[in-house]
């Protein structure tokens, strides 16, 4: 997974973050990331509802997964670790 710049600094990571999950879905990957980096709780999705924050997008394999069901399987190349899941801050402001 590739985090946006602000969250890399917050989590003190420089590059891609790897997590291993049984069935790779948006929900399971985010669960794993938040377990490994508790400081990220609430910064990607709402802590109470689990809903993606308004200005966050999820991209992978040149596709926008932001509006996919959170329990849908991620693309195979993300599951195998060949392609990253990108967490992106929406373009806003100048």
């Amino acid at each position, binding site marked *: 997974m590739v985090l946006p710049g602000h969250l890399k600094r917050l989590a003190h990571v420089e590059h891609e973050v790897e997590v291993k999950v049984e069935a790779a879905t948006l929900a399971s990957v985010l669960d794993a990331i938040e377990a490994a980096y508790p400081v990220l*709780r609430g910064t990607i999705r709402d802590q109470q509802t689990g809903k993606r*924050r308004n200005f*966050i997008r999820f991209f992978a394999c040149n596709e926008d997964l932001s509006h996919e069901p959170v329990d849908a399987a991620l693309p195979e190349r993300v599951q195998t670790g060949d392609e990253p899941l990108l967490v992106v801050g929406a373009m806003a402001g100048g």
Partner: protein
Amino acid sequence: MSGVRVLIGTRKGAFVATADGKRQDWTIDGPFFGGWEMYHLKGSPADPNRIYASQSTGWHGQVVQRSDDGGKSWTAVGNDFQYATVPGTHQWYDGTPHPWEFARVWHFEPSLTDPDTVYAGVEDAALFRSVDGGQSWQEIPGLREHGSGPNWQPGAGGMCLHTIILDPSNSERMFIAISAAGAFRTDDGGKTWTPINKGLKSGEIPQEESEVGHCVHHVTMHPSRPGTLFMQKHWDVMRSDDAGDNWYDIGDKLPTDFGFVIDVHAHEPETLYIVPIKSDLEHYPLDGKLQVFRSRTGGNEWEPLTKGLPQSHCYVNVLRDAMSIDSLDESGVYFGTTGGQVYCSPDSGDTWAPIARDLPAVLSVEVQTLS
């Protein structure tokens, strides 16, 4: 050796400025949390090395940072602010009902006696408390459930609880202020709250002397006189001598009584400071001159303080939490501007000099007096 530490929150990070008691030569550390909005940083009166900081962005929401070494290093603590009960609705800008939604922490007020206890004023307006050093937060719901909530509305910056005052003589008493609902007081440790807005008149609401709905910008109190409060409202500078039960206007002699900050001298409970701003339409100083106004008579007379401050072409604002006063023998006054300047007067306002000139827009300034 005595000195001061100035905690500066800006639109793009936090800075910590330190100096000895002369307050002439400054060391500035930072930015901390570069790129994030730092609405407020405040140290514990019981342990000055314990500092709480509110870090947020529109992208990633709220993060709370804590330092246990005076701002050298920081640790993220709890950021889960859940309203204790169904939040309901308040008024939107157009008067229609709008659901209560947490946005950010505007103000931290650490306990006067326990470094692990801290209050947080948030948007949408509510009061939270942590008793474990910021790891977990619990709402004090009696305020939001006062019953007048459906009539509260957001000011231009959002519907924020921005002022929290703890009464040093009565641990059960606390004052808060919300823009735009007004000021409230509890006398039972937060269980029940009373609106304390009698005497306020606001032309921006349908009934100008309404119990709630006033756009209070900031309130301050001298700890030796906990019954006396001073308020900068949207328009009007106000005073109460009965713990907020009744207010009267002390701003008539000012060139403009719109503004955001108001603060009281550390050793002189009748000495006040404000920064008059031209109007709610313009949000910059009158005539392009940055002037602090001081009253040494509790608001009866006011004098402009200008020495060292720009007196031409100055069009910055000074936001509500961006003034602070130290308690060295010769008290120092500090404020920050939306133009990124932070000024210090080491002589109670007589003369001013910049600590920094080119920071991001300053949201908050808090000084700690160190011994």
